[in-house]
């Protein structure tokens, strides 16, 4: 193939922390060739981002790097870990540039975007005045910003997340770098936007002939984009190779697990004869956006007249991008936000009940939230968190009896019951999510609202949580309303799917036919983006 461009040679990064030294990257060696795309894949904490920041010389102060990072893109061969600061600055943004995961905060909020792009040109090229202005406009057009003449004077807060990422890309490409490091550039974006950005990167790579070091946790993206792959786990590269070979015959067990960690299997459908558990009609939710002291408020319609029916034992998936109203709909069904319309739970008209009337029903309908860090009170022990529902619904229980039930619940979600005296901050994300599930289960619900319960977790952890949810559903005959933006997960779990957009239902069908033959354009677009099928 072509010439090597960047070689990592036994890179090691240590962090000197107060409690001792932690090795974040250990003995990492790999090579990126000119014009190719290399994906560095791993879950959180694998050291993939640290590896890439080491090449840019942007490691945090506490980090110490050793080994060698050879750069062949400049005049001669250089070790990026030992070149002078001055040389490093001449490389950054010029020969190697970088885009980041956080498009919302990666641009300086106080400067117009034109100025921020121009700054790179002024730093590394001789372009000034009109010619640099021209080049900025050209770049903005290339990354697909509409009306560059107008947008050049925008501030970052006037742009959407996708547009900001486009500006970041324009900035990175300004000096036509030989290597672009993209650190999870699409993770914070909606799937349809993600697909657009990836297509843009591919297109620009062809145009500029640059190499891309793509850091991601998402194997779908890797397969779609990369020529070769390095898989990282706990600071080490466990497997490397060409994308096709690696996906076809993964050697290392971790790679195998990662590739397998795609939600598979389908749910067995519930017969139509199953009794209806939850029936909602004309659910409408609106929020005041502009609160006025006097006079009428202005409203944002989050959910618009939605009907749905859930049978016992069924899983209904609700899919949509951010702002589609899916979360609000879920909360309205549990009467956690105010809504209009009818909600019938087991033939009880819950929409008319007041707080006190609702209380006995609460144990029958429970919820698990997305954020495993925000959904547990940091000042209560895990035992207290799980036991709280019992205090409400079985107030006559003695302490020991309650403790027994808490232990049972923890065992059911496969956590060590001895941990019930600990506080939430002592657990990992996946464990916290299990605690949240135990809190819901302990009151013996029939219906469980699962609001993106796996979105904040690593893929491998996601799989275990999904398996747990499946087991629990079978064991207890639970009915799920599963809200997610992740179509793969929904496909694996749901009998029926509702696709939502801007508060409305776009399409509602049984899972198999929806995924096999989506009828609506938006659904098709969403699926193409999610499964990264080629748009051509």
């Amino acid at each position, binding site marked *: 193939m072509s010439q090597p461009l960047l070689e990592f040679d036994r890179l090691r990064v240590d962090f000197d922390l107060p409690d001792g030294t932690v090795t974040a990257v250990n003995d990492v060696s790999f090579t990126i060739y000119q014009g190719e795309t290399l994906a560095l894949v791993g879950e959180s904490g694998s050291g993939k981002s640290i590896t890439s920041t080491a090449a840019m010389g*942007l490691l945090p102060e506490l980090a110490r790097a050793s080994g060698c990072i050879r750069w062949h893109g400049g005049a001669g061969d250089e070790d990026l870990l030992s070149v002078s600061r001055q040389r490093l*600055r001449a490389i*950054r943004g010029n020969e190697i540039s970088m885009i980041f995961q956080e498009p919302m*905060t*990666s*641009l300086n909020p106080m400067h117009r975007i034109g100025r921020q792009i121009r700054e790179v040109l002024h730093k590394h090229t001789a372009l000034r005045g009109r010619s640099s202005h021209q080049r900025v406009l050209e770049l903005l057009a290339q990354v697909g910003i509409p009306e560059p003449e107008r947008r050049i004077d925008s501030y970052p*807060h006037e742009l959407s997340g996708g547009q900001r990422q486009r500006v970041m890309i324009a900035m990175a490409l300004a000096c036509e770098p030989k290597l672009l490091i993209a650190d999870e550039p699409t993770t914070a974006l909606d799937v349809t936007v993600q697909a657009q950005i990836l297509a843009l990167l591919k297109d620009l790579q062809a145009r500029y002939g640059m190499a891309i070091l793509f850091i991601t946790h998402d194997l779908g993206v890797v397969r779609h984009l990369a020529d070769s792959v390095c898989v990282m786990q706990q600071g080490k590269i466990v497997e490397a190779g060409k994308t096709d070979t690696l996906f076809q015959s993964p050697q290392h067990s971790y790679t195998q697990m990662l590739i397998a960690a795609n939600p598979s299997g389908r749910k067995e459908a519930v017969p139509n004869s199953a009794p209806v558990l939850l029936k909602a009609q004309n659910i409408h939710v609106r929020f005041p956006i502009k609160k006025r002291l006097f006079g009428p408020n202005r409203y944002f319609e989050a959910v618009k007249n939605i009907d749905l029916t859930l049978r016992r034992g069924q899983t209904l998936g609700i899919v949509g991008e951010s702002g589609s109203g899916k979360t609000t709909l879920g909360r309205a069904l549990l009467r956690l936000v105010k809504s209009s319309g009818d909600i019938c739970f087991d033939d009880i008209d819950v929409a008319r009940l007041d707080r006190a009337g609702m209380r006995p029903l609460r144990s029958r309908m429970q919820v698990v939230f997305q954020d495993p860090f925000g959904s547990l009170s940091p000042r209560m022990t895990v035992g207290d968190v799980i036991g709280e529902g019992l205090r409400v619904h079985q107030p006559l229980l003695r302490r020991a009896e309650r403790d027994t039930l808490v232990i049972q619940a923890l065992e059911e979600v496969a956590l060590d019951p001895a941990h019930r005296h600990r506080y939430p901050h002592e657990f990992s994300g996946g464990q916290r999510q299990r605690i949240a599930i135990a809190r819901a289960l302990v009151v013996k619900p029939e219906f469980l609202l699962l609001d993106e319960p796996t979105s904040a977790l690593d893929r491998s952890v996601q799989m275990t949580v999904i398996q747990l949810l499946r087991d629990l559903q079978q064991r207890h005959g639970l009915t799920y309303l599963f809200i997610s933006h992740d179509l793969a997960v929904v496909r694996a779990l749901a009998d029926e799917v509702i696709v939502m957009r801007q508060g409305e239902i776009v399409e509602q069908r049984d899972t198999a036919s929806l995924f096999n033959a989506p009828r609506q354009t938006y659904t098709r677009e969403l699926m193409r983006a999610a499964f990264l099928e080629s748009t051509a």
Partner: protein
Amino acid sequence: MLSYTLKRILQAIPTLWVVITLSFFLMHLAPGGPFDGERQLPPEIEANLMASYGLDKPVWEQYFTYMGNLLQGDLGPSFKYKDFSVTELVAQGFPVSLELGLWAISLALLIGIPLGVIAALKRNSSVDYMVMGTALAGVAIPNFVIAPMLALVFGVFLAWLPVGGWNDGHWKNLVLPVVALSIQQIAYIARMMRASMIEVLGSHFIRTARAKGLSESEVIFRHALRPAMLPVISYLGPAIAGIITGSVVIEQIFGIPGIGRYFVQAALNRDYTLVMGTVVFYGGLIVLFNLIVDLLYSALDPQIRYDNE
């Protein structure tokens, strides 16, 4: 921008009105009259006096008279300094207080901001600990302790500078009061600047700026400094209020003929009109400076929208 400015000015008016009205009625709630002084005045003389100051009229009428006069810049007569109106006394003292205050706020910014930036850049070093330790002391120790101490050391023991007096604003007379007045604000601003600088330096757009290949000084001066200054700018309102309040003590300690000293004497002499006039004047000043600071802030931060809020 213009409509935002107008709106902020309109918002300032009720505040001022509350200050004036509250002060007016508080004063009239005071037990006893202004002439209950040392000697009992004959009743007819007191009645005359009351009439000449308009004090025999109903309170609400006096209130409207006062408001009317106020709109024309007339704060009424002083009860104790019989030859002067309150407006004249304020007008006499104001230039002196203003000079003192401007020096103090400039010093606070000129020293506080760089100190904070240096501490942030040398985070957790001995320089940082030293600056921040001193700053905490500066925050903690009140100016009415610092001022006499400074006077004791530099005025009495070392005899380098005069212990008091104004001397038409000679620099030697200015040094101690300005320093005493600004120390607390220097300390506050330094602490605030350090905290916000550290936060900004850790933010993603600073990482972007470094990834562009900018030098460290370009990163700091072009990208970090302005956003890091925003909290300090919004603190300027309270800082100015603090300096105005502080000047009351400092002027008294150093015997400086500004409004602050009149204010204390008037308070002790129960010269109600003068106290009230000063409160109204100070109130207006603080409201005005808050307004200026707000406008300055919105000019510096593009994320503030003037039209929609």
